[in-house]
């Protein structure tokens, strides 16, 4: 290319790297977010020594779980080279729809959950099909979907969602396994978070994950190598939709019903993924780092709260930190002359 690309002179035959080499290579690529997360957690512990107590730390994780789940889902879409701007409104829809279902069937917790999960999958499927079959840029598709979902929810509830989520439903977001030694209570949402993270990692390691990242890197090459590109991308959107539904269940449990519960979450999810070092445009980055990015954001919020910053200023500081983090990442990735 017309810009400098360094050609590394080949040195003899192929050598298998040791496990240590592979780990350090992986760390070298995504180190920043983990380091930043660690830094923030330490700082929080300094401001609030209770933070190191398991229950307090777990409470933090409980708060962070919805965003982390959302970030994991968004990761799949971003690594494929797309955007999903509809997840915030999908979270709201999830909460509202669950409340409506529970209003008619007060004991139907499973029914409510199944409904919203199905809904998440359907929205994801719609996003995927519109983007791949109708060739609409995903930015626009999911933006349109955002408007549709927002409008639909407002229309359905006449602007003010009624009803509330039953106690049973809210267990997942609020409750946990009691009488656990040392931890006291293991919140369900933490369990869910870990399960999602593990599941996402396994999924990315699978053939599907490798296909997905190839699509994000070079979809023409992937297609010619036999990958069903539209289907792979669509599945990524479905995953994102499911994650949004799950995040909605957790968040609804945690925070209750409101029409604003999902506001701005899509931006937070995308920010979390970018903080984790995943490149907007696809083809690079790990899902663990994306989840770490979400935890980092939550840690940031927690810290700012602890430092006594007004809610408003928190937004401002958040903005600055995000820009700084991404600037730093760009600095590390700059091409060497």
């Amino acid at each position, binding site marked *: *290319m*017309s*810009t400098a690309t360094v050609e590394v002179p080949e040195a003899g035959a192929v050598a298998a790297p040791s496990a240590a080499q592979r780990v350090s290579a992986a760390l070298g690529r995504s180190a920043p977010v983990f380091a930043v997360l660690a830094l923030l957690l330490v700082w929080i512990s300094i401001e609030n020594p209770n933070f190191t107590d398991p229950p307090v730390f777990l409470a933090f994780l409980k708060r962070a779980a919805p965003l982390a789940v959302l970030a994991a889902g968004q990761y799949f879409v971003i690594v494929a080279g797309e955007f999903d*701007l509809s997840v915030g409104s999908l979270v709201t829809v999830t909460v509202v729809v669950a409340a409506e279902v529970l209003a008619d069937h007060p004991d139907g917790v499973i029914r409510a959950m199944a409904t919203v999960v199905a809904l998440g999958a359907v929205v994801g499927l719609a996003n995927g099909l*519109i983007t791949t079959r*109708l*060739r*609409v*840029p995903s*930015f*626009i*598709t999911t*933006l*349109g*979907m*955002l*408007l*549709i*979902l*927002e*409008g*639909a*929810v*407002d*229309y359905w509830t*006449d*602007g003010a969602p009624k009803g509330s989520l039953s106690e049973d439903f809210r267990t997942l977001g609020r409750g946990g396994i009691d009488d656990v030694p040392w931890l006291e209570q293991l919140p369900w949402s933490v369990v869910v978070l870990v399960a999602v993270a593990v599941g996402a990692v396994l999924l990315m390691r699978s053939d599907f994950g490798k296909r997905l990242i190839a699509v994000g890197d070079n979809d023409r090459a992937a297609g010619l190598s036999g990958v069903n590109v539209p289907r792979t991308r669509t599945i990524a959107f479905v995953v994102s939709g499911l994650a949004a539904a799950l995040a909605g269940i957790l968040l609804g449990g945690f925070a209750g019903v409101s029409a604003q519960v999902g506001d701005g979450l899509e*931006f937070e999810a*995308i*920010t979390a993924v*970018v903080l984790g070092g995943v490149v*907007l445009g696809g083809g690079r980055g790990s899902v663990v780092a994306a989840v770490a990015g979400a935890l980092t954001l939550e840690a940031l919020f927690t810290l700012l709260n602890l430092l006594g910053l*007004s*809610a*408003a*200023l*928190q*937004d*401002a*500081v*958040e*903005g*600055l930190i*995000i*820009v700084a983090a*991404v*600037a730093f990442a*760009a*600095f590390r990735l*700059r091409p060497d002359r």
Partner: protein
Amino acid sequence: MKRFKLPVNVLPIWPALGIVLAVGWITVTIDGGSFFTSSNMTNILQRSVALGIVAVGQTVAILVGSLDLSVAYLISLSSLVAAETMDGKESMLVPAIALTLALGAGVGLVNGLVVTKLRVNAFIATLGMALVLKGYLADNYSRPSGEVSETWKSFGYTRMGPVPVSIFLFVGVALVVGFVLRRTRWGYHVYAVGGDEPVSALSGLRTHRVVIGAHVLCSVAAALTGLFLASRLGSGTPRVGTDGGYDLESIAAVVLGGTALVGGKGRVNGTVAAVLVLAVLDNVFNQLEVDPFLKQALRGVVIIAAVALYARRRLVAREEETSAPPVETTGPTEVVPA
């Protein structure tokens, strides 16, 4: 529609506007209302001004290969700054305008610097700015504040027959920006940098300056929108920008108007037509008394459908290109040498 070919220079959004007007008229008439009334036309034009001005600015940002998600909060802040500075006094009208536009320029400058010097992705950079502005707004304002001067208030409402005077502001901005893009060197450079930044840099363009300039222009347009909204509201409000969804809506209008999200391709007049389309749709939905929440959803559907149609057009055009016979290396002279 497939075989119908437009003259090369006319963007497809204009006939789309025609169709929307026609369909709107038919639907409204069937429903028992009247479409082409003076008050209706005023309504449509009035609605386009706010979104139109900020969308023109957003067009430049997107053309250069960037994006601005901070416009909504900037609009709110601008309305407040304008109204508070004016404080109801005529003598403060000009200073208020100057200050507000300067604010816009400043914000745009910061956005541009963060994107170019710090190499932060525009999505994140302007999102960060949005949050900073949001924080500042939430910290200092919780309700409307300030008061615009009488002249300025009347600006928002004066009409010449069915035509609101403010439409000239919109048209003026569109004409000026369009002119700059098509006739000045800077405008050419915007297209170059948006088309391929490394190539432009190698050709000696100061790409950073071009991008920064584009961001400044975009934010000044947003500030101008804030000023205009202040004139309509009589004062400034901290929520006017976000309530109007100007960030995502302006981007939607730009894409609807045929500008490529990746940059380097598109026209201001396309954005203008797209804004009018959205305004007409809004108006028609109102006339049909469609539930306001449903309107929102329908807007989403329209945006997706329109862009899908564009994508189809491009695909069909590309297929026709590849089946064309190979371009010959000998052929009739097309250009007579000077």
